[in-house]
């Protein structure tokens, strides 16, 4: 099973907690996905408000690990402070590091990402960087102390699925021993199966599950697709060929004319 920063997990699916129709449906989706890890965030609390407390209790009751994010941060200082505040609240050194660089595509600012990752690993954080499939950036993130990489496969929430399969394959080949999680852009279970067939260790999803007509059903469908893709990768798949190859042996076939 996958290991992230020395923690062994039983699931290859990491599930986001945003955009579900209700807290009860979120809880059911988490159960049906069989995930060990959910992503969470931090936002300004209104005076006298209790909004954060109810969500905090729900997450505690789910009994899964939390991976807090720095979603929405556009600068290194914002991301670093958010990470520290998340550690204070969630009592974990894990942080899904996002430094957003482009307003429309939500593409990571990879320069800021590397800088923030270096600062945070220096302060004892275990960083899960949301990055692109750029191999040089990946190398810099590893040099900065990251021991997991999380490349996008398409823009966040786009549901487009893998846009650069050769790029993802190259990343897997370049870093055979680094846990790789596809984060962002997955729309349907076949997309998740595709990246798992490339040898990725896990998939992080949110909108594809939360936005489905039946989020809990979709969570289960993704869990199955992810396991199928993973098993297929290790079972060794056939490569496509140009010509037909009969699957039924022709030797001994009767001749009727």
């Amino acid at each position, binding site marked *: 099973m996958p290991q992230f920063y020395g923690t062994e997990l039983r699931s290859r699916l990491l599930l*986001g*907690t*945003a*955009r*579900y129709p209700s807290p009860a449906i*979120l809880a059911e989706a988490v159960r049906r996905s069989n995930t060990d890890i959910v*992503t*969470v*965030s*931090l*936002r*300004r*609390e*209104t*005076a*006298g*408000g*209790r*909004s*954060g*407390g109810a*969500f*905090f209790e729900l*997450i505690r009751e789910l009994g899964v690990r939390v991976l*807090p*994010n720095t*979603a929405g941060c556009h600068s290194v*200082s914002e991301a670093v*402070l*958010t990470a*520290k*505040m*998340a550690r*204070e*609240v*969630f009592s974990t050194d894990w942080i899904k590091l996002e430094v957003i660089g482009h307003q429309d595509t939500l593409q990571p600012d990879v320069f800021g990402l590397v800088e923030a990752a270096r600062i945070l690993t220096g302060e004892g954080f275990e960083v899960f960087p949301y990055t692109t499939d750029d191999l040089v950036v990946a190398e810099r993130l590893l040099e900065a102390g990251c021991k997991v990489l999380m490349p996008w496969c398409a823009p*966040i*929430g786009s549901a487009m699925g893998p846009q650069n399969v050769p790029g993802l394959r190259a990343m897997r080949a370049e870093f055979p021993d680094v846990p790789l999680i596809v984060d962002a852009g997955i729309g349907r279970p076949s997309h998740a199966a595709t990246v798992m067939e490339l040898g990725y260790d896990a998939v992080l999803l*949110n*909108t594809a599950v939360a936005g489905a007509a039946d989020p809990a059903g979709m969570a289960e469908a993704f869990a199955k697709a992810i396991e199928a893709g993973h098993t297929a990768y290790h079972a060794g798949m056939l490569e496509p060929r140009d010509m037909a190859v009969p699957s039924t042996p022709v030797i001994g076939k009767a001749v009727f004319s």
Partner: protein
Amino acid sequence: MKLTINGEEHEFPAATLADLLALLDYEGDWLATAVNGELVHAADRRTHLLNDNDRIEVLSPMQGG
């Protein structure tokens, strides 16, 4: 004392960060606080003195992807 709390300016007679949170009816162990861009641990809120024009952030858990 003039303070900016979560982006909004207010006038409050609070000596410490803990005083301010009590005054605003913030409670719960799920809050994280920062003053002028620096984290203030929950354990340090009682001794953290506030100054005029301090910028205070009070964050809590929410759904995220």
